[in-house]
């Protein structure tokens, strides 16, 4: 999805000054914009053309039990479904910048400037829905990321250093379990034990603005469950890269200098081992920000994933489109950040 970074060896270093970084950012953002346009087109095609081929009229999905042909026609008109697809796409893009007005049957609906569309299912503009739900998903993803990085990386490093020991084996068995158990299983299980059973945690979402304690308490189980899955993956990848890195010549060099083992590991090995971890983190965070559907569903967290799941079952295209855009944007931004961090970590990476 993202243009890969280039490694160079030898040759003088390019002036990776602020200007170069800025130029790089602009280039990448431009590429991201192109990507988003393509994604919008594809989603449009899927949700507008495919039902048509399947002989289903999206408009009928918006009317009630006793479909009134007039009502169907009105919905079609309001949604602009009668327009050719490129007109619809154009209207959508225009709406992003100047807002949009939907009018039909004497009813006028305004959708303010960053108009990501309007859900007629819920009579809501998409943008407020996204901004309402995005923080929940972001908090879930970031909180879990902190946990899984802490525990996953630590477990992976320990396993690598104590390769073949009981600790290593048991950690890897747990990691395997974490990787292979689906989140709805671990999620339901943790709910069953800690929330319903022992009653330690009330895993219910409480908005942050209502009470920090409640919010935090409600987020613990989702964080831990999600982190468990990812920590397992991170432990495995960290272990593998650590093993690889520990075999590198420069680790031997570091030891030959007389460095203490903790310094060899902490300063020399970890920094290299973090590169693949960072790559994964970028992808995972991006994907999670797009909606941790399973986690959000299991714990009834009102995040983007839940919104998109509902939207899909409702065939609520505007919401799907909006979430898809946000997801894509999140993935692109996460990758961009990772690429820049790459350059910080690994001087061989030139921002090109």
């Amino acid at each position, binding site marked *: 999805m993202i*243009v890969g970074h280039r490694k160079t060896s030898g*040759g003088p270093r390019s002036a990776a000054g602020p200007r170069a970084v800025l130029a790089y950012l602009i*280039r990448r953002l*431009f*590429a991201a914009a192109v990507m988003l346009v393509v994604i919008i087109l594809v989603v449009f095609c899927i949700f507008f053309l495919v039902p048509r081929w399947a002989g289903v009229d999206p408009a009928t999905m918006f009317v009630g039990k006793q479909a009134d042909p007039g009502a169907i026609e009105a919905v079609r008109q309001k949604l602009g479904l009668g327009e050719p697809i490129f007109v619809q796409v154009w209207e959508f893009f225009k709406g992003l910048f100047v807002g949009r007005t939907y009018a039909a049957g004497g009813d006028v609906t305004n959708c303010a400037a960053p108009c990501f569309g309007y859900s007629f299912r819920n009579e809501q503009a998409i943008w407020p829905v996204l901004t309402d739900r995005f923080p929940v998903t972001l908090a879930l993803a970031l909180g879990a990321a902190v946990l899984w990085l802490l525990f996953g990386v630590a477990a992976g490093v320990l396993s690598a250093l104590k390769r073949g020991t009981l600790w290593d084996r048991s950690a890897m068995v747990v990691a395997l379990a974490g990787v292979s158990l689906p989140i709805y299983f671990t999620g339901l299980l943790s709910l069953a034990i800690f929330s319903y059973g022992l009653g330690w945690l009330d895993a219910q979402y409480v908005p942050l603005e209502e009470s920090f304690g409640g919010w935090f308490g409600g987020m613990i189980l989702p964080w831990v469950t999600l982190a468990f899955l990812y920590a397992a993956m991170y432990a495995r990848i960290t272990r593998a890269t650590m093993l690889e890195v520990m075999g590198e010549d420069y680790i031997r060099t570091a030891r030959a200098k007389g460095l203490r083992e903790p310094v060899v590991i902490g300063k020399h090995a970890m920094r290299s081992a973090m590169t693949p971890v960072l790559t994964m983190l970028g992808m995972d965070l991006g994907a999670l920000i797009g909606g941790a559907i399973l986690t959000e569903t299991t714990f009834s967290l009102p995040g983007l994933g839940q919104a998109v799941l509902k939207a899909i079952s409702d065939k609520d295209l505007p919401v799907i489109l909006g979430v898809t855009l946000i997801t894509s944007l999140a993935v692109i931004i996460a990758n961009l950040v990772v690429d820049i961090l790459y350059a910080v970590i690994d001087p061989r990476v030139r921002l*090109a």
Partner: protein
Amino acid sequence: MSENAEDNAVSIPAQSDGAAKGAAKGATLTKDVAPGETLLKVTGLQKHFPIRKGLLQRQVGAVRAVDGIDFEVRAGETLGVVGESGCGKSTMGRLITRLLEPTAGKVEFEGRDITHLGVSGMRPMRRDVQMIFQDPYSSLNPRHTIGTIIGAPFKLQGVEPEGGVKKEVQRLLSVVGLNPEHYNRYPHEFSGGQRQRIGIARALALNPKLVVADEPVSALDVSIQAQVVNLLDDLQQELGLTYVIIAHDLSVVRHVSDRIAVMYLGKIVELADRESLYKAPMHPYTKALMSAVPIPDPRRRSAKSERILLKGDVPSPIAPPSGCRFHTRCWKATEICTKQEPPLIELKPGQQVACHHPENAEDQAPQDTVLLSAAKEAVELVAVGTAAELAAAEKASEAAVEETAVEETAVEKSAVEKSSDRPESTDK
């Protein structure tokens, strides 16, 4: 190994074209090219690898890996190609075997232009031109038995050897000194030297006329290296093969080659028969290269100042120096060297050189005597390290300049002289 090869010399059966008969020394297998005649002719050969950058992948430059070379390979001979990493020798090997398509220039094989032949056009040619690679580990598919690997060329070419593929493969195995019984084994069951033999057997399967070997022994241990070198030697004798052997090791190249091309930054700087090149190299680079080879003789250690230490590294082939590409590191470089590219001309029968101020030959630009400041630096840097060496190197450069001035040919002598200077000055 040699005893094996001798045994096999009589037993090598005729192949499909029957040319393998009479594997007497020097016998040729080609119908159309007699020994000593030109088998392969390369003119103005170029290969530039484009460098692309940015969103639109604009070409911003090119790695000029091979940048205009001319040479011929004569039937039955071995042409050695030496040079340091990045000089383009491996690219050249891939160009003449047409694994790469040249950017410009012409490759003629047996008088036929094969420069831009397509895959189907190359097919008959592939039988005649084979390649042996450096790394015997990675060039063999680990999932195939060596029988399959060596037999693959028959399948690809649609050739059914007399007595069947299996028999032919077993014959080839014995030719390269492996046990024919090992037909069904996998590459990992063999040692490095044996794997290189497998690679050679595969190359020989179709009875080629030209074998291009890219660093055939550099991945092998010394004792094994000698086995493979001897094997190549024997095979040439018995099968009348023509070799182009590409290597960075000057000793190996000298051992195997009849003629030697020295490459520097995509160019041939000197092309001469073995004797001339090693006895009296004309290009300063050749001289420096040879003098840099460590001599396995502790008694010569004290004579180390005959060594010419070049400054720095080979420049980037993306932006090679103007004029003579060696001028940035040459202790004899003058103004003309920076401006005018010296042509590769024959200064002595059998010795071509591209230099304005060659060693052991008449100066091609005698009017230009002022040394470049860079040349002086090059001299200074010859002796990285002690001031003593610095002084010695300076003397060496003076001697070199003198040499060119008096057109002295016996370079060996001056080297000895210089070396005798050396111990005095080091004692400082």
